[in-house]
C-alpha cells in the first residue's frame, strides 16, 4: 500500500482493532497447539474429573476445563482455530479466484460480440445466489459422503463465488469505458493484455475487501456445518462442534459454550473490521 494508505489505515481505529484481532487469532492458531500439552482428541481420565465425577472446570491442569469427554478445552480451541483459519483462508482463495475469473470474463464480454458468455455466466450466478447457501453446502456434503477437510474446502470455496463474480463484473463494466482503457486499446494492446495490465490491478482492491469479509463468512459457514454435525467428523475439534457438544451442559459449565462462541465472535469481528478498514483505505473514492 501507498504510504498515505498506511496512514489512513493506522488512523482507522476499527481497522487496527480488526488487524490486531486477526493477528492474535493467527498467532493463537500457530502457537496455541504447541503450547498446550494436551492432545485435543484425547480424554484425560486422570485430572479430567472433579470430586463428583463431573468434567473439571478451569484448573491449573486445564486452563479452560475439559469438555464432556474430558478433553482439554484450550487444546481443542487452539486446534479449532487452525481448522477455522485454514478453511477461512483457503476457501476464500478458491472462491475469490473463481469469482475473479468469472467476473472478469463476464464483465469484459458483457454487451459485446460475445455477450452470450456474460449472459450464460450471470444466469449461473443468479441460480447460485438463489439457492440457500448452507442448504446447498449441506446437500453437497451429503452427496459427497464422508466429509474431509479437502471436500469441505472445495464445497465451501466452489459454492461461494457467485457474489464475488457479480461485483467484479460490475467493476469491470465500469472500468472498461474509462479513458485509460480506451487509450490502451487505441495503442494496440490486446484484449488479454488490457485485462492483465489494467483491469486486474484495478479490481484487486475490491477483491481484497470482499475476500477479507469472505473469510469471516467461511468461518461462520464452517461453524454452522459443524454445529449441525454435517461438517468435519468427530473427533476433529472445531468451534462449531464445540458449541454443539457444550450446549447440553450450558447451565452447568457455560465455559464449554462461551469459549468457542467468543472465538467465533472475535474472529468474525476481526475479519469484518479489517475488511471495512481495507475498504476505506483501498477505495480511492471513499473519502
Amino acid at each position, binding site marked *: 500500500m501507498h504510504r498515505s494508505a498506511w496512514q489512513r489505515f493506522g488512523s482507522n481505529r476499527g481497522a487496527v482493532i480488526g488487524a490486531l484481532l486477526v493477528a492474535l487469532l493467527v498467532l493463537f492458531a500457530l502457537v496455541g497447539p504447541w503450547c498446550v500439552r494436551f492432545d485435543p482428541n484425547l480424554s484425560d481420565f486422570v485430572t479430567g474429573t472433579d470430586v463428583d465425577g463431573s468434567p473439571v472446570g478451569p484448573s491449573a491442569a486445564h486452563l479452560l476445563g475439559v469438555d*464432556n469427554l474430558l478433553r482439554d478445552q484450550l487444546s481443542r480451541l487452539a486446534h479449532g482455530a487452525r481448522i477455522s483459519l485454514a478453511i477461512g483462508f483457503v476457501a476464500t482463495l478458491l472462491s475469490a479466484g473463481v469469482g475473479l475469473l468469472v467476473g472478469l470474463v463476464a464483465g469484459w464480454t458483457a454487451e459485446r460480440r460475445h455477450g452470450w458468455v456474460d449472459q450464460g455466466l450471470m444466469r449461473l450466478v443468479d441460480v447460485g445466489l438463489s439457492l440457500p447457501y448452507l442448504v446447498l453446502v449441506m446437500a453437497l456434503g451429503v452427496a459427497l459422503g464422508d466429509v474431509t477437510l479437502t471436500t469441505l474446502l472445495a464445497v465451501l470455496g466452489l459454492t461461494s463465488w457467485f*457474489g464475488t463474480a457479480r461485483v467484479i463484473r460490475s467493476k469491470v463494466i465500469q472500468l472498461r469505458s474509462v479513458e485509460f482503457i480506451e487509450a490502451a486499446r487505441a495503442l494496440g494492446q490486446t484484449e488479454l493484455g488490457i485485462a492483465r495490465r489494467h483491469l486486474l490491478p484495478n479490481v484487486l482492491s475490491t477483491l481484497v475487501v470482499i475476500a477479507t469479509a469472505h473469510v469471516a463468512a467461511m468461518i*461462520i*459457514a464452517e461453524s454452522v456445518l459443524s454445529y449441525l454435525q454435517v461438517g468435519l467428523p468427530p*473427533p476433529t475439534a472445531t468451534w462449531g462442534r464445540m458449541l454443539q457438544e457444550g450446549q*447440553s451442559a*450450558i447451565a452447568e459449565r457455560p465455559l464449554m459454550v*462461551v469459549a468457542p462462541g*467468543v472465538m467465533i465472535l472475535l474472529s468474525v469481528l476481526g475479519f469484518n473490521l479489517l475488511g471495512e478498514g481495507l475498504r476505506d483505505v483501498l477505495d480511492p473514492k471513499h473519502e
Partner: protein
Amino acid sequence: MCSTRSTSEGAGRPSVSPAAPSGTLARKPVHSAALAKPHKFPQGNSILRARLGCARGLQATLLCLLALTGCSRELAPPIGERRAGPPQRGGVFRTAFFTSVRTLDPAVGFTTTNAAVGGLLFDTLLTYDAEGELIPQLAERYQVSPDGLDYRFDLRRGVLMHDGSELSAEDVVRTFRRTLHPDTPSPASFYDRIEGFADYRGGKSTELGVRAEGKYRVHVRLSEPDSTFLHVLALQLVAPLCRSAGDRYTREAGNTACGAGPFKLARYEPDRTIELTRHEGYYVPGQPYLDAVHWQLLVQPFTQRYKLESGELDYVRELGRSDVTRLRADPRWAPLGEWSPPNTVFGSFMNTERPPFNDRHLRRAVAFAVNREHIAMIRPGQIVPQYKLVPDIVIPSEPGYPAQRHDLAQALEEMRLAGYPYDPATGEGGYPHPIDYLCLVDSFGQQVGELLQQQLAKIGLRLRLKLVGWPTYQALAGRRGGAVMGTTGWHPDFPEASNFFESTLTTGAIAEENSQNNAFFSNAELDQLMVRARGNPSGDERRALYRRAEAIVAEEAPWVMIHTQRYLEVSQPYVHGYRPHPILTQHVRGVWLDRSRKEQHACLVPGGARGCLAGALPASFGLHTRPRLGLRGPGAWRSR
C-alpha cells in the same frame, strides 16, 4: 413390547443454530441492518454490504448467547408439591422421546420407543405385574398340558377393540398368522416352536399350530416344549389387532394402530408427535385414568429437561449427565426422580460377515482393547461397566464367570494373530483402512464411539464415525452388509437370559432386513445351547447353558459389551402412579394426574390459559419464580 433394539440417548439433533441465520442470509442481496452506513460502500457492492450486515447479526447473536450463558444456573422449581390422594380421572400426560417411531405396527416395530407407545395401544394375552411376574391380561386364564406342548387360553369376555368389535379367538389367531407370515419382517423366531412354524414362515404351508376353539378359546400347539413361550406371549408382536389390520403386513398399516389397549391412536406424525386418547370401551372399569397421552418425538435430552422444568412435559427419562447431576443435586427435584433398573446392555456390534471383523482375532482385539471403566467415567452413576452380555440384574456376576476383559497387551497380541501387528511406541502397523462406526448422531452412543476411537487407536484400529439419524441407523444396522461396526444394545423382553442371546446373536435372529442380529453372528453351538435352554424347565440347568453361551460370546466377540445404564425417571409432583417397571419401559398405564395442580399451572404460563379455570390459587401453590401474570385470569392472556 420390550424386545427392543436399545440406543442410549444423548444430546439431540439441533433444531436451531445460533449462527445459521447469518449463514443463510449471507446470500440475500441487501439487509436492513447492513445499511447503517450505505454511503461507505463502493458502488454496486450490495453483496459485500449484506455479508457485513449478516456478520454483524451473527455477532449480535453470539453476544446474546454469551448473555444467556450468564443466566441463573438454578433449576426452576417443580410445579406444586406431591400430595397423596385417590386417583383422579382426566388430564393429558405429556412426555417425549429422543428417537422417533418408524411404524406403529406391533409386528415390526421393535424398539424401546415402540414398546412404550405400544404398551398403551395394545393389550396382550399375558403381561407383567409391577414386580415383573407374568399375569393374564386378555387371557383370563390358561392351561398348559403336562407335556408342555399344548396351551389353551380362555379370553376375557366383552373386551372391546378400538374399532368397537369384541375380541375373539379369531382375532388372536389372525394376529399370530399375520406376525409370522413370510411377508412380515418381524422377529418371528420367538415363536419358532409353534407347530408348523418353519413351513408357514417359509411359505411352504398355510398350516400353523394356532387355532380357535370356539369364540373365546385359543389353542396353541408347540412342536417342542418352550420355557419362554408364556413370556413371548406378553410381547406386542402378537398383541391382538383389529380385523382392519388385515391378515398380512403392509407398510401402510404402520400409520394406524387398532388393538385392545387402554388408549387408541388419535394422531401420528412421524418424527413429530404421537397422540393417544382414552379407549372408552376399555374392559378394566375406571381405567385408564388419563384422557390422553402425548409424545413429542426427536426431542434432545437437555431440551426435555427444560420442557420438564417449564411444565411442558410431565415426565422425562432420557436425561444426560449434566441434567441428572443437577436434578439429583436439587433437593426440590431429587425426590421426584427414580432410577430405573440397569437391565439394558449396551455395546458395539462387529459384523462377522464383513472384513475386517470376519476375523475373530480382530474382534477379540477390540474386546480386549476397550476400557469400560474409562467410558463409565463419562457418566458417573448412570453408567456401569459391562463385561458380559446378560446384565447382572438377570444373572449376577461371580468370580470366574465368563466375560470379556480389558487387557491391552492381549489386544495387541490378537492384532498380531490377525496379521496386523501394531507397535504402540512407533505407531507403525495396525489395520490399514479406516473402519466405519455407525452411531446415532448426538447420542451417548456417539460419545462412546469417540472414546472407542481413542482406545482402539492404541492397537492400530482407526474408527471413522458414521453419524446418522434414527431411521437410517435402524435400516443400516439391520441390513445384511449394511454396517461393519456400530453401537448397539438390548433391553430385555422378559427376565430370562435366553432373550439376550436369542434376540441378538443366534442364527435365527438374522434377516436380510430388520435383522436383530446386527453382528450377523452365526454359531452352531450357541444356537444349540439356546434350543436346549428353551426346552429345559430346570432353572439351574438353563443357567449352566447360559454360562456356556456367555463363554462363546466372550471368546468369539461378535459384540464388545461396554456398559449398562440406569435412567433417572423424573416427573412433576402432580404425576402420580408411576414407578419404573422392572421389564416394561415407560409403563405409564396406571398414571393419574392431580388435575387441580396441573390446570392451575396451565393458567400461569403464556399460551396455557386455554381451558383453564379462573379461580383463586392456593397459597401453598409454590410457583416461586413464576410471573404473577396468571393472577390476572385467563382473559388477560387471551387479550394479548
